[in-house]
């Protein structure tokens, strides 16, 4: 059974429904599956819960789904680049579950690895800890003397990830800091759809170099001419 789909609409066919939970990989606009997110917009599916470190920027990536009000709730660590997000949230039109970035990445990793919950010192003594189980580990040489809060694993109906290279088996390789949340999200959904810049035949990627094994990836889309955006272009002069 082939994993490669001809276009983004086909790659998402039959797996979208109102009220579903979607994970969207990327950090800022780096390593985002924007072609697939565009297809989510076109599908018109709504009341979405979206798990993503950021919420895109105005008019780009998840920013488009905010404009169309397809998102009901975001689970994120930082949404500071998005004015529409702030407007909708402050008006009470958008639910938001702030999760510290490390806790978010670990909640996703845990969900994918079949771990329902874990304990972390992150957020102890802050609003993040409210309503969460607190535990101490006095007999542990490593963990005694501090408080830890329980955080739960995350799971989505669909994960949308971006990779630099993929083969027809769904094995993925990421490039530089475009890796970020993509590997964990690929493991933590009922159906993971990957868009890849370079599509090759199985066997063409050195097995030792594979970041995400193909077992996690159900569907693949080749996006050879994807537009990559830079949020903050910072440079130095050649003579300095």
């Amino acid at each position, binding site marked *: 059974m082939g994993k490669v789909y001809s276009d983004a609409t086909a790659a998402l066919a039959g797996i979208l429904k109102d009220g579903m939970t979607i994970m969207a990989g990327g*950090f*800022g*606009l*780096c*390593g985002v599956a924007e072609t697939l997110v565009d297809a989510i917009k076109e599908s018109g599916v709504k009341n979405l819960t979206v798990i993503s*470190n950021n919420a895109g920027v105005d008019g780009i990536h998840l920013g488009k789904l905010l404009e169309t009000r397809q998102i009901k709730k975001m689970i*994120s*660590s*930082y*949404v*500071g*680049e998005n004015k529409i*997000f*702030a407007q909708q*949230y*402050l008006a009470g039109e958008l639910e*938001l579950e*702030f999760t*510290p*970035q*490390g*806790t*978010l*990445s*670990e909640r*996703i*990793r845990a969900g994918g690895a079949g771990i329902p919950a874990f304990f*972390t*010192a*992150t*957020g*102890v*003594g*802050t*609003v*993040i800890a409210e309503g969460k189980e607190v535990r101490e580990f006095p007999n542990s040489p490593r963990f005694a003397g501090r408080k830890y809060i329980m955080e739960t694993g995350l799971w989505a109906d669909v994960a949308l990830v971006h990779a*630099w290279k993929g083969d027809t088996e769904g094995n993925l390789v*990421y*490039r*530089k*800091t*475009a*890796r*970020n*949340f*993509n*590997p*964990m999200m690929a493991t933590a959904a009922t159906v993971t759809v990957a868009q890849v810049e370079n599509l090759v035949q199985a066997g063409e990627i050195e097995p030792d170099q594979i970041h995400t094994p193909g077992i996690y990836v159900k569907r693949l889309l080749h996006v050879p001419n994807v537009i*990559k*955006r*830079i*949020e*903050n*272009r*910072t*440079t*130095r*002069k*050649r003579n300095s």
Partner: protein
Amino acid sequence: MAWTREEMAARAAKELKDGFYVNLGIGIPTLVSNYIPEGMTVALQSENGMMGMGPFPYEGEEDPDLINAGKQTVTELPITSYFSSADSFAMIRGGHIDLSILGAMQVAQNGDLANWMIPGKMVKGMGGAMDLVAGVKKVVVVMEHEAKGESKLLKQCNLPLTGAGVVDMVITDLGVFAIDRSGKAPMKLIELATGVTLDEIKAKTDAEYVVAL
């Protein structure tokens, strides 16, 4: 007289040690990388999944796949490694990073830190700050001493906390304070910025401290 942003960054750089793995926050902390002493090897971690961050690229060599946690284009070095966000925060949470230098809205004399939220006004999020202050071995805050004429160094924070009892040192434009996270010893004023007097610090500081110059 007081320290400029550059001078605050230069002072923070004195907390670096050879061989350190360091995470720098956005703003003044980013400037610290300009003051790493000659001959000292310090690896900069970026929590979006990079160890060994290099300087900004030359014009025309920007790579959209190579950014830091502030979403700025950066470069790689011979020591660079890349990893996932989960691996990045395993490094942070697991206590493998030696030093975190970050900005703040408020710091309390017991080491409480607030730098992520103003209720009803600012909706941005904590990003990786809560993980960093909970996991990194030493936490140094670099911030202006006052905001709109109000002390940012307080008896108690009134903004939502990023972490409770997590700050070891505060460098402001007026001086340097050392904090005992265990709360057993009071906060100490250990250095004055150029041209700043004890009276000026006293007038501009809400927190209680002892002078230990």
